[in-house]
Every structure is written in structure tokens, then in C-alpha cells.
């Protein structure tokens, strides 16, 4: 499903959508960056409360296409700017990671742990 469709269905606040048409295949929920680095799959959507700049680097390096900042966390200007530059979609939601993960699962998005 396209990232922008997910955002619309789940009522995310859209912060940046430079690559809204990208097809999202997997999801990951985690706030530990090393864990995300090791386990995220290409074409994923990532639910996290980490909003700092380094999340964008993690997304670029893993092939995560979209980040949802959950529980009302908001990214700063630097993070948004970098996300646009690197074509990463950013969304904000008031709901918790647990809630959103459940909704994504209903939409057919699956989690998968990458085995190294």
C-alpha cells in the first residue's frame, strides 16, 4: 500500500511527504536505533518516539521509507529538512505505537525480522 494512502486512512498528520507514492511492505516498532539498523527491512514504515536527526540517517541506511512519530512526538526543523532532502516521509500521530501497529497490521503490513 502506498505510504500516502496509509497516512490518509490512519489520519496521520503529514509533516513531509516527498515520497508519498512509495509502496510500503513492512513495519517496525522500536526506539533503539541499533536494533532498527539490524532488523528493519527495505520499504518499511517505522513507528518510534525518537524524533532527532539521526532517525533520518537510520531510515536512509536501512531503506525505511516512512517514519511515524507516535504518542504526539514532534520532529524539529532540522529533522524535517533532512527528511525532505533524503526523501523520507514523516508523519505524526497522537496514538500510541501499539495502536498504530495494530491498525497497520489490519491494512496488511507485516513485520519481519531480518536475519543477518
Amino acid at each position, binding site marked *: 500500500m502506498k505510504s500516502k494512502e496509509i497516512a490518509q486512512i490512519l489520519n496521520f498528520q503529514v509533516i513531509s511527504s516527498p515520497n508519498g507514492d512509495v509502496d510500503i511492505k513492512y513495519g517496525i516498532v522500536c526506539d533503539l536505533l541499533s536494533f532498527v*539498523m539490524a532488523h528493519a527491512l527495505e520499504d518499511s514504515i517505522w513507528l518510534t518516539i525518537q524524533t532527532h536527526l539521526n532517525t533520518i540517517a537510520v531510515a536512509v541506511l*536501512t531503506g525505511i521509507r516512512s517514519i511515524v512519530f507516535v504518542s504526539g512526538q514532534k520532529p524539529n526543523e532540522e529533522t524535517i529538512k533532512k527528511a525532505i532532502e533524503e526523501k523520507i516521509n514523516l508523519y505524526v500521530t497522537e496514538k500510541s505505537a501499539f495502536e498504530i501497529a495494530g491498525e497497520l497490521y489490519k491494512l496488511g503490513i507485516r513485520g519481519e525480522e531480518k536475519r543477518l
Partner: protein
Amino acid sequence: MRIPKEFFEGVKVKEIMNTDIVMVTPYHDMKSIQEIMRIKRIDGVPVVNDLGKIIGLVTVENVISALASGDLKSPCEKYMVRNPKYLDPEDNLYTALKLFRQYRFGRFPVVNNEGEVLGILSTKDIVLKLLAIEEKEVKIEKKSELEPLILEYPVLGGDFVSAGIASSTVKKVLQQLGVEPSIIRRVAIITYEAEMNIVIHAYRGVLKVFLTPEIIEIIAEDEGPGISDIELAMQPGYSTAPDNIREMGFGAGMGLPNIKNCSDELRIESIVGKGTKVISKIYLDKK
């Protein structure tokens, strides 16, 4: 099989050179040249002056240098090979092959007495001539001709704003080169974790990546506190990162174990009070 010298002497450069070439001026930016190379599937673009005379050659290696410095917007004048060696259209293939062997370049422009570029002769053109087959799909057959490709980035301790840029750039360069995604993935994890360890735990350092057709070697070297017990540091979950760093999602104690998982070979050298050197190798030719 040995092909007699006479065969090569009987073939003229102008008969087999590629004449479907694109020329640029010194003001063309590197980004557009990169696109030209990708679309036309060529690995060298001659640079000519206002009179149409050759003054340089932009090669894939030059594009990679610009890319590695994040400098694709610069005019090609800055990166091109100046006064490149070239062939005469009347030269025979034997002369050309000697030039290839001498300089180990992948291609030479073919230039007439007036300094005008008539074509380019690449090793690809020669192979196609020898095989007498039609050109179909030709990928960038680069990488092996020259010295290893070296990427090098400074990394500053405590600089969380730039953190991740070095490893992201490495990933992009490898993608440009057509390195296999599963390999890129491993390099991305190793470079990211090594870069972050310098940012989090050390004062300053460099991240270096050496690439040859056989191996990718990643070296992260820093000036910093060093690691007193490397075995302990390698344990999953072990971390000395302070709380404020952990709150940002770093310091899970997974960095070194992640690096180990992704490496074919890993060596860590450290002197307490001086610094740490992480050397990771990935072999590309093992099937």
C-alpha cells in the same frame, strides 16, 4: 588461444571506436554528467572548449570523487582529467592495446590532428570487436581497472548533527556502483555503528572504506578513551553510554555485536587513553 599481432595491427582505431559520444563543456555540472553516463551507458565523457577542442575527460572515477564529496553541483572542470592521453583515429589496435596496458585506463578519447574528438575507444569496444558480437546489455564494467576505490570521512565526537552522514554517503556510493543490496546492507550497518561509536564514545576519528572487486574493508579509527576490555565490550547489551545518550535510542550495547554479525572478518585494536581502531572485512567473491 593466442591472437596474432598482425590481426591487431590490421584493425584501425577509427573502425572500432564508439562514435555515439556526448561531449560537454567545462561548465557542465557533475550531476548532469553522471546522468549522461547512466543513460548512455558510457564511462567517459570528453570535455571540449568553445572551439570544440578537447581539454579534458570526465571518467566514472571523477564522478565517484565528486559524489563522495557531496559535490555533484560543481562544474566538471574541477574533477575532470586534464590533458588526457588519447589515440589517433589512424592508430592501429596494437598501438591502442599497448596504451591500455601502459596506463591501465578503461578508455581513451580518439582525437584528430585538429584536436577534435571523433570517438572513444574503451576496452568494451575492443572485446566486442574480438568477439564480433552485437552489443546488448552492458553494465558499468568498472571497479577492477584501477587502484581500490577509497572513501574517507572525518567523524567528530559528540557531533550528533552530522552523525550518520558518512555512512549514508558510503551507502549511496556503493549503490551507484551497483554493489549487491545484501552487501550494501551489511556495509551500512558496519559503517553506521562504527561511525556512531566514534560520535558517542570518542573525540574524533575517520571512517575509511576500501573497495576492490574482491573485498570491502571498513576501517574506523579514532582518538579517544580506548576500550580496556574488548571482549566485554563485544557482549550484546554491554554499554557505557550515559543516560542522555540512551534516551536518544543509542547505547543499546548492540553496535559492536552488529558489526561482528555483518563482517566476514573483524579486528579491534585499542589502547586505553589513546584510541580505537576497528577493521572489518567483507569478501565479495565468495559464492
